[in-house]
């Protein structure tokens, strides 16, 4: 009896399994790697090696774009792996989606011969061709002379409309500036002095919790909040991993400059005074964000994108905006007279990665046409603003705007998944719309930007005679054609001595910089750090970056001729 039951169970199991696997195989052969006609609409697949939001299959704007362009793309994002791991498995398996964005794994894809060279096609697609200047296209050529990917971001049409300083800065709460009567703060000493004075006068929040004068995020790769300030303090633009002197075109290590020592000495003194948060070096990113969200932290160095989203929401919700807990950037340098270059305007193309078409794509022309179509103004508006009269309104002058209800709605996760379709990892313009009236991105539309700004920030910006965040730190031109060199450093691996050094430098700094800041005797701590730092042979790293700087300069000169 029982045995019969068991057999029956097994049979049932087998039947279920075979049906499941059967239908799965059917489905897989249908949806995979094939730009098939499905009611006249082509379907492409796209793997993006960064985490991202999936949208619903029946997404409304996606459908609308499909009607215009005749194609739609199913995007898959990175989950639970690093970009290089994910790309490595794809290469090993030898099967690719139609589109791919390899992120940090881009060069692996190129080396594996997985990508289609795009240079012969580009001329046929005006929107793609115009997306970059000739010089920029040249800079995208790989060692074999071909172009394999199209970087998607940092491309302004018309004039730049940037309103936020999206990058790194010394940030300070507006309440501190207001308390001091909006003074001019341009040096590191002034900055810390101001924080000290404010803290002495106002040690607590109105509700009694203690202020945290200055905190430092130091969690894993986010330790840039501690380590790379010397670069900016000396008035250089953000080349990331090292300084490239615009005069001599030479690569300089910012870890050992006199400014670096002065800066860390300052932090050491402030740590002893109790100004630097004692939990700085053990806090995790979540805890850091939690601290900022309580409005207790007066100032810190960070990149805007690293904190603004969640922190500003939290401040708003708790009514802390009225207390002046929002942050504005300051143009801090090491001493008076040094020009601050925290913000560089103009488009910096990340040549290290972009969207590619793989050799498994059956319809390269169709794929490129889709990218081309996505860059038409009509579709750009759909991607960035949404549907007219639903996601934005147009006033009598033709200016786009959003009502408070719409603003609320477009941040709703469910609404985004079912309605909005930004195709965010396809090439996209920021800057001005072709109508020469509106910004391509809602958050850069001047009236949209202003109405989203908290009162205390508006007041502060006004006091400094600034129209937006960028005016606070000042605009600067891109220092040179190599900029930013971190797009090269990101591709270095342990295969070269320089790449190995690069990881070692990071490891040493992560351990010793906190120690230096907390050292009872700074000089001794610094000496020990420098001794260990030299053992990783930083020169090997610099020696590999220099040729790339030279190469990029040469390339741009050639293209200019």
């Amino acid at each position, binding site marked *: 009896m029982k045995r019969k039951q068991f057999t029956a169970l097994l049979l049932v199991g087998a039947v279920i399994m075979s049906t499941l696997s059967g239908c799965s195989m059917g489905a897989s052969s249908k949806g995979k790697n094939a730009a098939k006609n499905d009611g006249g609409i082509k379907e492409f697949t796209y793997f993006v090696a960064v985490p991202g939001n999936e949208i619903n299959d029946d997404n409304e704007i996606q459908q609308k774009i499909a009607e215009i362009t005749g194609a739609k793309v199913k995007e898959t994002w990175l989950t639970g792996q*690093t970009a290089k791991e994910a790309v490595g498995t794809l290469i090993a398996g030898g099967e690719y989606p139609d589109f791919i964005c390899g992120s940090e794994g881009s060069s692996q894809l190129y080396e*594996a011969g997985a990508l289609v060279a795009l240079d012969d096609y580009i001329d046929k697609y005006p929107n793609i061709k115009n997306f970059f200047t000739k010089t920029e296209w040249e800079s995208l050529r790989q060692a074999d002379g071909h172009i394999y990917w199209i970087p998607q971001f940092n491309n302004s049409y018309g004039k730049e409309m940037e309103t936020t300083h999206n990058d790194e800065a010394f940030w300070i709460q507006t309440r501190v500036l207001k308390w001091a009567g909006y003074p001019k703060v341009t040096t590191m000493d002034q900055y810390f002095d101001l924080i000290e004075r404010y803290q002495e006068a106002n040690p607590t929040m109105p509700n009694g919790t203690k202020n945290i004068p200055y905190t430092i995020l130091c969690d894993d790769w986010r330790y840039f909040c501690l380590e790379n300030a010397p670069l900016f303090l000396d008035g250089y633009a953000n080349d990331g991993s090292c300084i490239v002197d615009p005069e001599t075109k030479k690569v300089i290590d910012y870890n050992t400059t006199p400014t670096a020592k002065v800066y860390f000495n300052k932090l050491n003194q402030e740590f002893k005074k109790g100004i630097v948060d004692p*939990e700085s*070096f*053990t806090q995790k990113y*979540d*805890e850091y964000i939690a601290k900022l969200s309580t409005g207790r932290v007066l100032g810190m160095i960070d990149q805007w994108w690293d904190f603004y989203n969640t922190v500003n929401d939290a401040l708003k919700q708790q009514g802390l905006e009225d207390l002046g807990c929002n942050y504005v950037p300051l143009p801090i340098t090491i001493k008076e007279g040094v020009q601050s270059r925290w913000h560089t305007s103009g488009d910096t193309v990340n040549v290290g990665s972009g969207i590619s078409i793989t050799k498994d794509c059956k319809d390269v022309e169709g794929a490129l046409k889709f990218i081309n179509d996505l860059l038409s103004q009509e579709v750009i508006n759909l991607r960035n603003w949404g549907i007219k009269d639903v996601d934005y309104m147009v006033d009598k002058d033709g200016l786009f705007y959003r009502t408070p209800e719409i603003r609320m709605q477009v941040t709703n996760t469910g609404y985004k998944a079912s309605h909005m379709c930004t195709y965010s990892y396809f090439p996209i313009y920021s800057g001005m719309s072709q109508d020469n009236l509106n910004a391509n991105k809602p958050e850069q539309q001047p009236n949209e930007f202003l109405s989203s700004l908290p009162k205390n920030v508006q007041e502060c910006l006004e006091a400094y005679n600034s129209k937006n965040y960028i005016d606070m730190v000042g605009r600067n031109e891109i220092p040179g054609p190599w900029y930013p060199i971190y797009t090269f450093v990101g591709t270095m691996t342990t*295969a070269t001595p320089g790449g190995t050094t690069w990881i070692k430098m990071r490891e040493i700094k992560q*351990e010793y910089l*906190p120690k230096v800041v907390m050292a009872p005797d700074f000089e001794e701590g610094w000496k020990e750090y420098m001794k260990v730092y030299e053992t990783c042979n930083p020169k090997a790293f610099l020696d590999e970056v220099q040729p790339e700087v030279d190469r990029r300069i040469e390339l741009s000169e050639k293209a200019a001729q």
Partner: protein
Amino acid sequence: MKRQKVLLLWSLVYVIYGFIFCYLPLAGWLMAFENYKPKDGFFHSQFIGLGKFKQLFVDDGFLRVIRNTLAMGVINLVVTFVAAIVFAILLNELKSQGGKKVVQTISYLPHFLSWIIVTGILHDALSGTGIVNDLLLRFHLLKEPLNFFAHPKYFWGIVAFANVWKETGWNAIIYLAAIVAIDTNLYEAAAIDGAGRWARIRYITLPGIKPTIIILLLMNAGNVLNAGFEVQYLLGNGLVQSVSQTIDIYVLKWGISQGDYSLGTAAGVFKSVVSIVIILIANGMAKRAGEERLF
């Protein structure tokens, strides 16, 4: 010799299956001896012999992570083991059946929390203003708040505690299953003979679950080099990285995230070999002691 046929036939199926799914992929170990490039595949990548192993063993950093891994592996093995056995026995001694059920159900719940949640709570509890510092200050055991995560000396202990906290109830399930399998007649007989609770635990319960204990101990001994990666990564920071990094973190940093699969594979091969050696030794010791063994 008789009565082998059926068993042999069945074994054959298992051997074929095991060969395909467990042993065939070991061809991938070839990667450890070459400079593997995805574009060249296994068979066309450059063969470099022991180069990757040399690279590992001349690096002070690797020797340090071996030390950390071994230390944390052994500490975790011992404490989680003892905790689970003690908990299982004590739970079994609980008189109320309802109480037993409730306690057991609750005890294994933390197993389902991801490490990121557990470490988040732990970070909270041990922070300068967390409950631990609060208590220590209140009882005057400390003069000022102690930042536990800034001192390398506390790190291994914290990791061990985290493991016990999360997995004790779950690990105890196996022992509970073994305890219920003990013939209840034995307990009754012992009770009639006037054996107290302690004597019953010592002479009936413990011997009854001994085979299970030994098998699990042997198996886990082979796992000391798999001290983990997530906990250490989530609890660690720059200040304690000299004691927090494990082999897995090292491999991730220097191998996988650099696209250097060969290095990762070499470390994996090293771990496997050490594990198997440990298992062979431990099994041999068990054999000599006349205890249960793995094979």
